[in-house]
């Protein structure tokens, strides 16, 4: 690990300001992803700003019936919150489908949104990777790409966003709140938070340098049946090959987002609209522009079957 200086921030505004003032600085909260990458020298910050003591661990009701989640709320605490379990069960299900108990105790809400891809070529520093080193090339294309992206990918990068929590937040239309180094606050809809790779796969989200996530807000509950189905190589503690987050209403309408297939939680309003016509119609629309490799073509069929399984479950068998 490269050596670094360390400071403990006292307020969100101070943290954001400090990040802008120091070259090559990074925030650290749970650290479960950042320290892993620092040990491999994929991440090499020379200054760490510990935001772990900023408070921001509260989950509060909003005036319109929604929920405002402090960025430092752990994955465990968020998934176990009584209102999340009752009104946003797809979020509890998604969080509990990811990582291990030890990691969920440490991982934070904001940090989880920022976790980086698990593409094996990103992790292998002997391989060219446009995300690690812009312009170096992409070893994944033509390489072993079974786990990698099928839709929204580019010639520069076919990595996926690996998380589960954000896929559920995408169907719930969450909003990410931030503070910038100059003290400006803004609200970013989760649909716009993660970027498609395009030809700059090293830029993964909408945050500007030094901008710090402070909260994630969930709009008023929308009812319905909440389901998160994750297909992976092990029954527990593995990243998704494909995951499906869905909120389904009794009249057949609903919302659906896919994980493990794209640079971001993959949801299209046009695909949501196909839900009453079944899984084939939804997946046909959501993956119309897919460009899979020979190794990961199976993910499209898998997504359709996972969704079909969810839709065929009788509403009486509440999974949410």
């Amino acid at each position, binding site marked *: 690990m490269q*050596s*670094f200086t*360390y400071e403990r921030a006292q307020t969100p505004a101070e943290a954001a300001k400090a990040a802008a003032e120091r070259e090559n600085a990074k925030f650290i909260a749970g650290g479960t992803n950042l*320290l892993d990458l620092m040990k491999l020298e994929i991440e090499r910050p020379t200054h760490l700003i510990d935001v772990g003591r900023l408070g921001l661990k509260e989950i509060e009701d909003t005036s319109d019936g929604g929920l405002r989640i402090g960025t430092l709320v752990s994955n465990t605490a968020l*998934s176990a919150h009584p209102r999340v379990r009752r009104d946003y069960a797809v979020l509890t299900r998604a969080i509990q*489908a990811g990582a*291990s*108990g030890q*990691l969920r105790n440490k991982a934070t809400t904001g940090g989880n949104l920022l976790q980086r891809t698990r593409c094996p070529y990103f992790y292998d520093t002997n391989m060219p990777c446009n995300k690690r080193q812009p312009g170096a090339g992409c070893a994944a294309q033509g390489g072993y790409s079974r786990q990698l992206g099928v839709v929204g990918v580019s010639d520069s990068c076919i990595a996926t966003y690996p998380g589960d929590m954000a896929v559920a937040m995408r169907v719930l239309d969450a909003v990410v709140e931030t503070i910038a180094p100059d003290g400006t606050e803004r609200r970013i809809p989760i649909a716009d938070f993660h970027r498609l790779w395009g030809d700059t796969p090293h830029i993964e989200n909408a945050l500007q340098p030094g901008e710090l996530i402070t909260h994630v807000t969930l709009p008023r509950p929308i009812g319905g049946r909440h389901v998160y189905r994750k297909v992976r190589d092990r029954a527990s*503690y593995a990243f998704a090959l494909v995951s499906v987050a869905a909120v389904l209403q009794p009249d057949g309408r609903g919302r659906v987002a896919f994980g493990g297939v794209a640079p971001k939680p993959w949801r299209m309003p046009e695909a949501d609209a196909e839900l009453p016509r079944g899984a084939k119609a939804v997946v046909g629309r959501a993956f119309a522009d897919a460009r899979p490799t020979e190794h990961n073509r199976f993910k499209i069929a898998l997504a359709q079957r996972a969704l079909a399984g969810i839709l065929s479950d009788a509403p009486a068998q509440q999974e949410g």
Partner: protein
Amino acid sequence: MSEARRFPVSRRGVIAGGTASVAAANLPWSDVKAQQVERSVEPPSVSVSLNINGEERDLELDTRVTLLDALREHVGLTGTKKGCDHGQCGACTVMVNGERVNSCLSLAVMHEGDEITTIEGLGTPDALHPMQAAFVKHDGYQCGYCTPGQICSAVAVLQEIERGIPSHVTDDLLADMQPTNMEMRERMSGNICRCGAYSNIAEAMADVAEG
């Protein structure tokens, strides 16, 4: 073709060759490393106070020292084990302020004032924690390397179930959590045992859960 003919290089030869190739590979790097060292001759260090198993410990540490290395190398508590050092195996599991975490994926400096409980703090050879006694009774280990992490995790899992934290296999999110075999297996998935003592670990946990 015999094994010897297919692999004519002896193990000793491979090790020697491996060392040589590492040395050669290091050549271009040595300059880079020298420059990095010059840039920062003295790696930044910080003071941190930890409460470890009820004892206050004041440490002066390189910022890079993980909680795991602080425990093992600086405090001398070697019960907590280093397996993968990347949060995948769970051998380094300890409790911080009552919650289990991977001590390898946390910097010591981030734990100023925190209460750390390691396997040494759970029980002693003369006064075993009930979970330690249950692991002995049910043969919940073979080589024992993952065991301190398994036991810390197991103790925390039963507390998490009691606190009503749901899991991936919980059917009803609104009902009380039960310490079923399925629940314990799912919740222990962050602790790997290469000897495969899993079923006995689950039995030890069930024994403790039943009181």
